[in-house]
């Protein structure tokens, strides 16, 4: 029951972050801070999926870190590209 509640909480947080990211993109467009926030939200969503949905919280820390690094590298690359060619 506790686990189901945790999953529900993560799910609601994920939906909120997805909505916020889409709203930011629609309202703030290509402002640097908005882009940074959108990418940070994507990273946070990936973290929640890995830790709570995939069940890597508290176990498989190395694998969680490696998967998060995959997300972080691509999102950082996207941010770098945006800074170079806005």
């Amino acid at each position, binding site marked *: 029951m506790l*686990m*189901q509640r945790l*999953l*529900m909480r*993560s*799910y609601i947080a*994920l*939906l909120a972050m*997805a*909505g916020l*990211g*889409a709203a930011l*993109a*629609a309202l703030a467009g290509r402002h640097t801070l908005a*882009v940074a926030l*959108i*990418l940070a939200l*994507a990273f946070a*969503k*990936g973290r929640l*999926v*890995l830790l*709570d*949905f*995939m*069940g890597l919280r508290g176990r498989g820390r190395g*694998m969680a870190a490696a*998967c998060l690094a*995959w*997300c972080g*590298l*691509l*999102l950082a*690359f*996207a*941010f770098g*590209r*945006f800074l*170079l*060619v806005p």
Partner: protein
Amino acid sequence: MLNDDGHAAAGGEGEGDLLLWILVWSELAAFGVLLAAFLIRSLFEPEAVLLAKAQLSPGLAALNTMILLTSGWQAAVAARDPDKARWPLVFAALAGLAFVVVKLHEYAGEIGFTGDAAVASFFELYFLITGFHLLHVLFGALVIVVVAVRPSRANVHLITTLWHAVDLIWIVMFPVIYLV
């Protein structure tokens, strides 16, 4: 070691995970290369990319994000209690199929741009990356249906972990392709 159903006990939450994670990482590596290629390409053709991105439907993609997150949530519920996994798996598969329907609807409005020389190179990569992901969602949803018919702990663990990897790929792909 077998459980009551004759399936491998506790599936893969141990040594059996090695092959599962090799599979997950093969997906992450493939999509990582594709997304990196997309970003590098957009460095060299920034105007064409901006022009092409204006033709995309980020609203539909955002809707698909919500759908895939809902599916992932149901898959996680199934994985936590494999004895009651059937209906959460069915809901996860249905949400996956809803993702496919929305994406095909989105494609219908975009396919015409492949003939436009100004944005053709963007749309080539766009359809390659999102289409490859779409095939993963479609195939994954069908496998989830098969697992839902006769869920075993090992199979539920396997398909839900792969499903979350597909989910994770979309979470990164969405801002990279549509928003930034």
